[in-house]
């Protein structure tokens, strides 16, 4: 499969934007102390969300988890409302009720971010069931981690998806760690994709730092889903370059392991490929970085200028009328 230049640039762009967005978050959180609560970043893993979402239409659905910023931006979320939500402001996509951890962006078909590890897959299965029930030609992509693969809910969801041939794509972002536990310490097998066969679905392993490879795997999975052949499990091998959250000193992560993976950073990797192929120039890339910087600056300004929600508004939105 050849990937169009447009798609390639789209992936690079959402990676650049995500990286800039999260680098800014790191600064806002650790240096400036402006953001409350936890701060969980996907630095170095952007090829997964950006590659996968490039394969989706706006009407396709994603369900994400605690490490969501890249997924949401790649799916097309407005950086302003995300940033405002992360600041817990009233103009945030969820009026400040979610904060960074559970941003719901139904307007881009990213209706659910759960921080309950492993909770995404059953919900994704429900969302994909609705697509099947309504006869929509759409898929649901569910992002979750290597740690989440241990949760019973993930098993139940994959089992049901396999049984009903639902149009769902499980993307397991294997970044080697679940909290402070290394893969070997929390999983009995190194390839979580080995489990797919037990649910009658293909288990695909891709280089999770290679956005086009992720894209390609998702395109294939989508075709399969849309032809009625059901779900696919895609394990993206990547690495958590930062701590579990920004408060994590990473004392248990070998320094050389981190730096080796930083070498494999997906952003320069795709940039170099595209430059070598003549798809973009160095100036084009610089332009992307500038645009991303401007958008993130604007998002921060928007968020900072926005008011907090009033305390009493906390009473709203519990029940639909």
């Amino acid at each position: 499969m050849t990937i169009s230049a447009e798609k390639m640039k789209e992936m690079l762009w959402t990676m650049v934007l995500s990286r800039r967005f999260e680098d800014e978050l790191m600064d806002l959180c650790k240096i400036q102390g402006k953001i409350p609560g936890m701060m969980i970043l996907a630095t170095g893993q952007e090829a997964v969300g950006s590659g996968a979402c490039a394969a989706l239409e706006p009407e396709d659905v994603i369900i994400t988890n605690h490490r969501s910023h890249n997924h949401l931006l790649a799916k097309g979320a407005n950086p302003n409302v995300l940033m405002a939500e992360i600041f817990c402001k009233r103009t945030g996509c969820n009026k400040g009720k979610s904060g960074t951890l559970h941003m719901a962006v139904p307007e881009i078909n990213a209706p659910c971010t759960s921080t309950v590890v492993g909770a995404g897959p059953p919900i994704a299965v429900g969302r994909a069931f609705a697509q099947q029930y309504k006869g929509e030609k759409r898929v649901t992509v569910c992002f979750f981690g290597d740690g989440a693969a241990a949760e019973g809910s993930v098993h139940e969801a994959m089992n049901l998806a396999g049984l009903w041939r639902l149009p769902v794509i499980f993307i397991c972002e294997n970044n080697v760690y679940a909290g402070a536990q290394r893969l070997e310490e929390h999983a009995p097998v190194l390839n979580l994709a080995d489990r797919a066969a037990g649910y009658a679905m293909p288990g695909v392993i891709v280089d999770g730092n290679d956005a086009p490879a992720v894209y390609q795997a998702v395109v294939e999975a989508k075709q399969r889903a849309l032809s009625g052949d059901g779900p696919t499990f895609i394990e993206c091998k990547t690495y958590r370059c930062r701590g579990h959250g920004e408060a994590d000193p990473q004392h248990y992560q070998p320094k050389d392991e981190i730096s080796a993976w930083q070498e494999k950073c997906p952003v320069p990797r795709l940039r170099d490929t595209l430059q070598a192929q003549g798809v973009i120039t160095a100036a084009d890339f610089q332009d992307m970085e500038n645009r991303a910087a401007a958008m993130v600056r604007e998002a921060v300004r928007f968020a900072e200028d926005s008011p907090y929600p009033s305390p009493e508004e906390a009473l709203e939105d519990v029940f639909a009328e």
Partner: protein
Amino acid sequence: MQKLGMGQAVNQALREEMHRDPNVFIAGEGVGVSIHLNPMFPTHGLLEEFGPSRIKDTPVSEAAIAGLAVGAAEAGLRPVVEIMFNPFFTLASDMIVNHAAKLRYLSGGKSAFPLVVRMKSGAGIGAGCQHSHNLEAWVAHCPGLKVVMPATAADAKGLLKSAIRDDNPVIFIEHMGLYFAPMPVPEEEYLTPMGQAEIKRPGTDVTVVTWSGMLGVAMAAAEKLAQEGVQVEIVDLRTLVPLDKETILASVAKTGRLVVLHEATRTGGFGGEIAAVVMEEGFRHLKAPLRRVTGPDIPVPASPPQERFYIPNDEQLIMAIKEII
């Protein structure tokens, strides 16, 4: 008027709503092909009528069943899923409590989760504590969930139809003991609003607040007490959330005396909430201490004499009432 068991009334409500709205579907273990070939059961005959695309038998996977409902509801469908017995709600509880109940709030009001979880509850089936464990107090404590526990077949029909049309997650708890006793149910279509208790028997001397399977016990006790000249007013809550405080308080204002009757175990049961509401807002009317008549603080035992001992009965209720009048 037709006479139906509660299971049949539920069945009628399900049929009517499925005919009305193609977005309604049903999922659960054995909701289609069932080990029961008994028209008294709620999902009897639905598979034949609506086919396998709308009546979905699932694997034995309570979390996935609940997740299916959450995801499908967000997409605008109206799932009615079944968790076979109340104790198995534990297995679905993350999906219901941390997701169905919270995701609307977390979306800042953007999304809605119009789903119904039906569960069987109640002791008296000889199956022991892993099948019989009334946990309505759990769901009633979770903002974002509505909780319905009908005591009559007619209420079950009208309330289930309201629950299915409601845009919020509703936990609908059916007492198995009510499946088999025929009760009058209007033939025509009607909706019973959630959040309204009903005075099932008016009286002046003492208020008994109850719900679900215990209504019969309350009625039996009231009958007997009436012969001794004691007029019991019976408030059937019907829905625990939203709670109809007005009806409870008006009754206590009239009688000055409160007994709460529920089948669930005493400590931490929803009876405490009723007590608190009355003590907060109806204190000046109270002439006597509260009495709670409830299951004792034990798991439901299997042995018949012990299971009977577990279930609150009219004698206990009469004794409790006599203590405070």
